[in-house]
């Protein structure tokens, strides 16, 4: 039973990833936008490199949020054409597999964007990311899981409404404030060498956020996806 659901999850994640890989249009646009936002923050806060380094945690995460939010609606919009989503819902099996599948595809998408975004930020703002790959990777992963979980969940609704472009960030960003605070503080602490040992506490908060909303979104998804 579980193995069947796992196959359904893998199939949906693979389908979404393949569609993305073959078009590439969206990925390239989002990466370009992310790099552009980093550059714009440089103009807004620079050119003193200290000021940029101080703000780096916040800049990186706002860039992730603003660029990443563009990717969630697309995950459902493709399905809405030609009634593909209705077909998907007609297939037997647990609908929550659709959520997990889309979550994995979106997670891969956003993590890939971040893998380009972070070196770009390091380059532009002179950040020592090479020295802190492991703790930084952990913070990024924890923050991204929470972000993508809620993004995938709210996009299931927003993508089917007229005002989807504005409604998704409107629904998503207020909910993400604790995640933003924790991720920014943890990233800043890690990049500063974590002398005060703050990063661990913030990462625990990220874990709590991720677990609470993974469970809640997983359970609530079936009420959101139908009709």
């Amino acid at each position: 039973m579980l193995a069947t659901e796992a196959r359904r999850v893998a199939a949906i994640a693979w389908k979404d990833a393949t569609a993305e890989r073959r078009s590439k249009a969206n990925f390239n646009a989002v990466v370009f936008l992310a790099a552009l936002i980093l550059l714009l923050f440089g103009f807004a806060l620079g050119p003193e490199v200290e000021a940029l380094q101080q703000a780096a945690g916040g800049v990186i995460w706002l860039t992730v949020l603003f660029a990443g939010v563009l990717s969630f609606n697309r995950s459902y919009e493709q399905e809405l054409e030609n009634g593909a989503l209705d077909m998907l819902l007609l297939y037997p099996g647990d609908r929550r597999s659709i959520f997990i599948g889309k979550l994995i595809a979106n997670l891969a998408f956003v993590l890939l964007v971040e893998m380009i975004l972070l070196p770009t930020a390091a380059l532009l703002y002179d950040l020592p990311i090479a020295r802190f790959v492991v703790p930084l990777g952990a913070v990024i992963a924890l923050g991204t899981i929470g972000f993508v979980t809620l993004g995938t969940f709210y996009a299931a609704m927003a993508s089917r409404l007229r005002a989807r472009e504005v409604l998704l960030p409107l629904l998503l960003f207020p909910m993400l404030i604790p995640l933003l605070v924790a991720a920014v503080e943890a990233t800043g602490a890690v990049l500063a060498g974590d002398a005060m040992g703050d990063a661990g506490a913030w990462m625990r908060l990220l874990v709590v956020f991720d677990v609470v909303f993974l469970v809640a979104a997983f359970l609530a998804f079936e009420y959101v996806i139908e009709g």
Partner: protein
Amino acid sequence: MSSTETAALPVRPRWHRPFGTVALLFFIAAQAFGYFATAPERDMGNLQKIMYVHVPAAWIAFIAFTVVFGASVLYLWKRHEKYDHAAASAAEVGTVLTGLTLALGSIWGRPTWGVWWTWDPRLTTTAILFLIYLSYLSLRAFTEDEERRARWSAAVGILGFLNVPIVYMSVRWWRTIHQVQSTPGTVDSDYALALRLNAFAFLFLFIYFVASRYHLARLERTLEARREEAALAGGPIHV
């Protein structure tokens, strides 16, 4: 359009109007008590009186969001539209009260702290709650299908409520690390009595407002049903 099956208009409960009148009178009395019967505070003077609206508004707003949560869970469980009406009503009143809390806190903060806004944990948490429930209401406004709106907003109402303790914790840690003082909350018994009276006054007004909004939601629903009926009957639509 002469439809024999036209749904009857829902009737306002009998207790409703008298209760509203009593709630309003009680509110006026509680405010008067707070204003005239308690001495002006030593440092803040009459500025302290704003506590009798600011604090009850904040408390009742929190009750309102708890009602949204409870009604949302009940809706997903029972799928009866009355729970959706209740959640929507409590969310609207709660959002107004949260906005009131913020505005009053700001008015109090300007002379006390010297600034309109400070990143105090409770203030910040309240502002985030305001945004979360505004987005809840905008989802409702943008979703046209009645049943879908009820399901979606129930899910969003539950997730939003789950976020409240996480928001509070994150903001508090954030402020602790950045070292900003908070205000002491030691309160004299006279003030406490006035505060309690006003809290109940707000609670009664809250119940009245939610009941009014609930009644309105039922009227709206009946109107929608009549519209649908008229459309199906094929005649011109008179509303």
